[in-house]
């Protein structure tokens, strides 16, 4: 081995050791920074989530006061006899909501999630709600169905749940309406 080889090997070895040590110190510093930053981010997330909550409440109180608030939800049972494509909500013969479902939304409904389809204002008194459901029914056929409900709105908020269930005895989907006070 000539002097040049020895010199280069020495340089290389020195460089590698130096790099390794510097890397280790830097990794430790970085971990500490990461941990502190993680805590700061979590604290910020908490504050923003709380602010978001308060602003949602403020908006709801402003746009949909309790005495006129009216909300329509949609839920699904097993969904073996009906695959929901879209839904339309009419209130007193006026279309107030249309929704076209994505695969992900359908999965969420089938697992027990409840969707808020519409939120609006209704004065006290009698009203009519019609929901039209479009989708694929038993044996893969196109399936359209409407369901009507007469509502008595009082001065407290009203929640209506549209429930799509499987009627296994008739092998047909069933569309029920449940009113929550």
């Amino acid at each position: 081995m000539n002097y040049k080889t020895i010199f280069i090997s020495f340089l290389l070895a020195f460089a590698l050791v130096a790099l390794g040590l510097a890397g280790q110190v830097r990794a430790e510093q970085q971990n500490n920074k990461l941990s502190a930053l993680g805590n700061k981010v979590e604290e910020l997330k908490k504050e923003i989530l709380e602010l978001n909550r308060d602003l949602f409440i403020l908006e709801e109180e402003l746009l949909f006061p309790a005495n006129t608030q009216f909300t329509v939800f949609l839920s699904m049972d097993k969904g073996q006899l009906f695959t929901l494509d879209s839904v339309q909500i009419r209130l007193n013969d006026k279309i107030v909501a249309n929704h076209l479902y994505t695969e992900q939304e359908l999965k969420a409904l089938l697992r027990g999630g409840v969707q808020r389809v519409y939120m609006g204002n209704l004065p006290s008194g009698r009203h009519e709600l019609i929901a039209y459901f479009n989708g694929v029914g038993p044996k893969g056929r196109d399936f359209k169905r409407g369901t009507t409900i007469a509502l008595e709105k009082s001065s407290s908020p009203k929640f209506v749940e549209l429930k799509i269930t499987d009627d296994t005895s008739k092998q047909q989907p069933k569309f029920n309406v449940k009113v929550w006070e």
Partner: protein
Amino acid sequence: MKTNSKQGRLSLFVLFLSGYFSITSLSLAQDEERLEIRNLHFGETLYHFYQKQYFTAISDLLVAQKKHPIQTQGENPNLLLGGLYLSYNMTQRAGNIFTSLTQKDISKRLQSSAWYYLARIAYQNSELEKANLAVNKIGVHLPFRYNDELQHLQGNILLKQKNYKDAIKILSQYSDSTDWSHYTKFNLAIALIMADENEKGTELLEEVAELDAQDIEQIALRDKANLALGYAALKAKDNETAADYFRQIRLSGSQSNKALLGIGWAFHKEGKLKRSLVPWVELKNRSSKDPAVQEALLTIPHALEGLNAKEQALAYYNDAINSYNKELATLKSVINSVKQGEFIKSLRVLHLHQQKENHLHFTTLPDSTATPYLQSLIAGQEFQSILKNYRDLLYMKNILTHWNNQIPSYRLMLNEREKAYDSRIPKISAFMKNTQQTKLLNRYRKLKSRLEAIEKNHVVFALASEQEMNLLNKLSKIKKLLDKVPPGQLEEQHDQYRLFKGILYWQVATDYTPRYWQVKKRLLEIEKAFSKLEKKKTSSLTTLVKTPEYFKDFANNINNKQRKIKNLNQQISNVIKYQESLINRIAIDELTKQKHLIENYHIRASYSLTRLYDSLAVVEKK
């Protein structure tokens, strides 16, 4: 084949699948059981949770907790909130919730779930002792569906603690029927090798290496097992076996370049230099940004030298030096562009294109000149976690911007309401001052006392109809006429008068009770109407008094929120800036590391080139 060198075992250890657990993150979102929904707001939270929209789901649940507390779902909302915080990388909050759940008098099943999540949080935070303690508290009531995850978690904790004996005990209980079995088997193999049970470990790793893979994740796992076995065999100088393992790896996959490099080394070590050139030359045609390719640029002339093809070796060393120079120049310019914010800009653009609120991973790579050099860094668990926080911060900044834009419309709406209210004040005041109500009330009171007198004195004819009263009047007139006639005359007419009056009395008297109740009912209706009117008046009065106060409170609330938005916006901008500088730092460190590696190769190539020239010169002199 035995993996008995210490270095070989260590290189295997770093391969253990510590990340898989947190990547798949089977939290509540993957529960197969369908919860019975007894509260719409809880159902709504689940709807967003199942779509991995954690921010919206947490917001929904927080709104519900404040406005319509969920009382019909037991402790499920708390468990869900804990799971949501965990999914949203808020481990401290999640930990607080799960800890408080473990202290409550709740079902053992829920308590076990809470301990399980606490163990996961502690593991995620690398608090292994704490994680172990939590695991020991889980008990036997944990829902069955968590069993495989728990086993994987326990195994990972023990592996990280280097407690291989107990890790083997736990991981050996794996069930072949679940998706987790291959991953558990992989980790068990590593644990066995680390505990010097090489044969058993290798056998298991071989099982994974021969896996009949069903999906891309399993293929990747199979490649990883073959790569681990291949390099372990190389270290153990069992070169032929090593080559066999490397051959099992796909030609185009994340491990393929390393496998080609390994095959080359296996042949080289066996002295089959010509054969070693085949995979290495194949590597040379691949992207020069890959470290395996960069190494191959050096191993090719090294093998050619061994074959005494010195002229060709010279050419390849020159090629390598040129390639390293080019790569070093590119890296220098990439580092400069990263320093100028090009990588961060590409991340921001990527975020803009991300439609969904949340992802566990960045599925699309950022369009940056640095990306080809940072692929393995980006795929790493730690960097993914940093990116996830970065994306969350950008998302929250958007949320704040949205609310900030909404504030003027809320003010406008409030002003409109105030105006509408002001316009109604005269009408309300007039209604309040109306005297008609007092007159009507007096009339009602008179009627009521008259009815009471009728009832008390039983004045039957007081409830007679108009027609009956006419008849009674006529009969009175007839009576007056009859009274004027001297007694003893018109006896028959007297009798007729008595008969008619008796019939009339009978008629009215028999109908008295229903008539009385009819009148009383009407009076009660009037009384109710008065009471309703009174309530309305009181309510109007309250509104009149309270509404200005309400408007004032609302306006204050809006102002406070706007101040808070401004403050948080400032904070989030600072943290984003800090996060960006951290991402840049990590990226530059990684690029510098690669630069040093290439510089090292460059030095080695230059040295070899000099040495080769020297030896050729010596030959020429001779």
